[in-house]
């Protein structure tokens, strides 16, 4: 049974009281300096809750690093390391190799500690893709989580390969002759799946239980895993500070950002969008970054979203 609230949200009864069952401990402490209503910070908070204590985090440069680690303070309660922008995956791989040898040699307790590397979309899909590809291909026992806010936010909303078509950014601005970013999002989950790793998933802070379940599943798997987490950025997307959850929900309901997993090659939708998906404009019109789009351009986006969604459904059907 589904109920609608005043804002028109849909919350299933099953999920309704589930937050009460979630780990109470916070591993990403209050006092971090993310913007008001930052979806990426929420996503990080949820990830750490799902990871629990026995995880080491290697973080790329970006918003989440800057807002969490202003020396001599840290928001992290897990062991945490930041080295640079392009190499969260290789730092994580090194940590994993180090812990593995030390455990084998009996120099640390014989206990599995999950190594998690994380980066923004730029740190993952652009400058960090070489290190990421290497780490995944080599089969390190690690999880990589990409927090995708669809641009280089830390440096001021520049375009990345994850910036959606038509979005206005500071290096692909909408202008008299341009309607913003000209390319479609590079399909990172597919690129990761092509590495033949055991687990790839998309996730969103707007579906916290789904996201956390995926993190837990990945932690349980021995080998490289990749989660691509939708992370709304109030500042860069020009949305009100209370809207991160809502846009994430609309991203799912319109089919713009479906939530699925690829486990050993098998595709599965983990949160079903409504039978009749909402028009993409419901998603776009909320956000300042898309405000300049014309109805024609919105139609192009609708077409592409439908096409991609059908492709995904086919993969699910055939796996």
């Amino acid at each position, binding site marked *: 049974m589904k109920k609608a609230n005043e804002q028109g949200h849909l919350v299933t009864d099953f999920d309704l009281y589930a937050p009460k069952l979630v780990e109470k401990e916070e591993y990403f402490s209050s006092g971090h300096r993310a913007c008001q209503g930052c979806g990426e910070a929420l996503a990080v908070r949820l990830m750490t809750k799902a990871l629990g204590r026995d995880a080491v985090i290697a973080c790329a440069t970006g918003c989440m690093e800057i807002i969490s680690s202003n020396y001599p303070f840290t928001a992290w309660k897990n062991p945490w390391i930041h080295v640079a922008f392009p190499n969260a995956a290789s730092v994580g791989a*090194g940590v994993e*190799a180090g812990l593995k040898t030390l455990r084998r040699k009996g120099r*640390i307790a014989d206990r599995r500690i999950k190594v998690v590397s994380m980066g923004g979309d730029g740190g993952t899909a652009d400058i960090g893709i070489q290190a990421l590809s290497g780490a995944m291909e*080599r089969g390190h026992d690690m999880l990589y989580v990409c927090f995708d806010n669809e641009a280089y936010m830390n440096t001021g909303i520049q375009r990345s390969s994850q910036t959606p078509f038509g979005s206005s950014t500071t290096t692909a601005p909408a202008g008299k002759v341009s309607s913003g970013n000209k390319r479609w999002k590079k399909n990172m989950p597919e690129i990761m799946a092509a590495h033949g790793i055991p687990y790839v998933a998309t996730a969103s802070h707007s579906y916290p239980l789904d996201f956390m379940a995926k993190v837990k599943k990945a932690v349980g798997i021995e080998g490289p895993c990749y989660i691509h987490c939708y992370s709304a950025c109030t500042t860069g997307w020009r949305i009100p500070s209370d809207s991160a959850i809502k846009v994430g929900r609309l991203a799912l309901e319109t089919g713009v950002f479906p939530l699925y997993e690829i486990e050993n090659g098998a595709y599965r939708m983990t949160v079903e969008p409504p039978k009749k998906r909402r028009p993409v404009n419901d998603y776009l019109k909320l956000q300042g970054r898309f405000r300049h789009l014309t109805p024609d351009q919105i139609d192009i986006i609708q077409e592409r979203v439908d096409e991609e969604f059908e492709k995904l459904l086919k993969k699910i059907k055939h796996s």
Partner: protein
Amino acid sequence: MSKRIGMEVSIAAAEAVALCRIDVAAVYPITPSTHIAEHLSSIVSDGKLDAEFITVESEHSAMSGIMGASAAGARAFTATGSQGVMYMHEMLPVASAMRLPVVMAIGNRAVSGPLNILNDHGDIMMERDTGWISLFAQNGQEVIDMIIQAFRIAEHKDVMLPVNVNIDGFILTHMVEAMDMPDQDEIDRFLPPFVPYATLHPDRPVSMGTFAGNDIYTEISKSKDAALINAKKTILQIWKEWEKLFGRKYEPIESYRADDAEILLLTMGSMGETAEMAIDALRAKGMSVGLLKFKLWRPFPFDELKKAVKGAKILTVIDRAISYGGPGGPLGIEVRSALYDESSRPAIFNYIIGLGGRDVTPEDFMTILKSSASQAKKKAMKERYVIYGVRES
């Protein structure tokens, strides 16, 4: 007991790394350092060393990987050179700032362009200011010794800094030499297990590599500078201990027939042995010449340099790298600067030699020394620095 061996220096270097019982190596192939990595991987593959050998997809990841491993508490190593060192460049000042005691062997090679795989010191000189301890070996024995010393120095609680050991590409890396290889017991006594200052472990969570604003960045930089300067004390101690154990003496600047010499030649790396022959030949002709060899490039041995050049009239500094459009070769520039405030100092000449693998012979040094002497006599230094042997039209 050490064993007398004859083998390629790169192979010996890998054997020395294995004696140090490293936990993790992450290496990306580049000539002329590849034999070190290949042999190390075969030692691991044969089960003679219990370590993770990560075949990374780039040098950037090699350095990042060993930094991660070191932060986790593992003893970690890499080897590279030239484009590889430069590909790591972004990571090098981070490794020293994070005080991660990793060790890197560099098979020194000219940097592109044009591409050239042969020896000079252009690669390490580009990384001069990254906050690493930097040692230069002049022969295979020193390669073995310095690699082992490097771990001890790096991990010392008063140091905690990364160390690079510079090994001239081909001239040393590919040379077959007779060397003494220490045995495992000796090295186990000299190099105790790595006790890290902090590790990435949930039992004691720590945040490493935090961000620093303008209110504290200056203090952090000063503390790193002080750490590097202070490291010299420990390096000297460890070298004393080495001498006691193995009978081989190490000094920041080694001298050869230099005590009473009026004219001093200053070299780095493998050129030292070639230069000795030039000194012997000129001494035989009655010229008052001597040789200084730089072994410790960072931290810069100011006191030792001042002491070593005392009384000399001419100091001819040989560089195997060039600072384009600058005041000379890196060593020449620094030596001039270090001696500038001395009330009496030798006339300083700076020659750049052996770029991109061009041969350096004893005759070259003899020519250079004679030329410095005659210029000094005429009190006419032709140029701030000379690119020796360059063909001109």
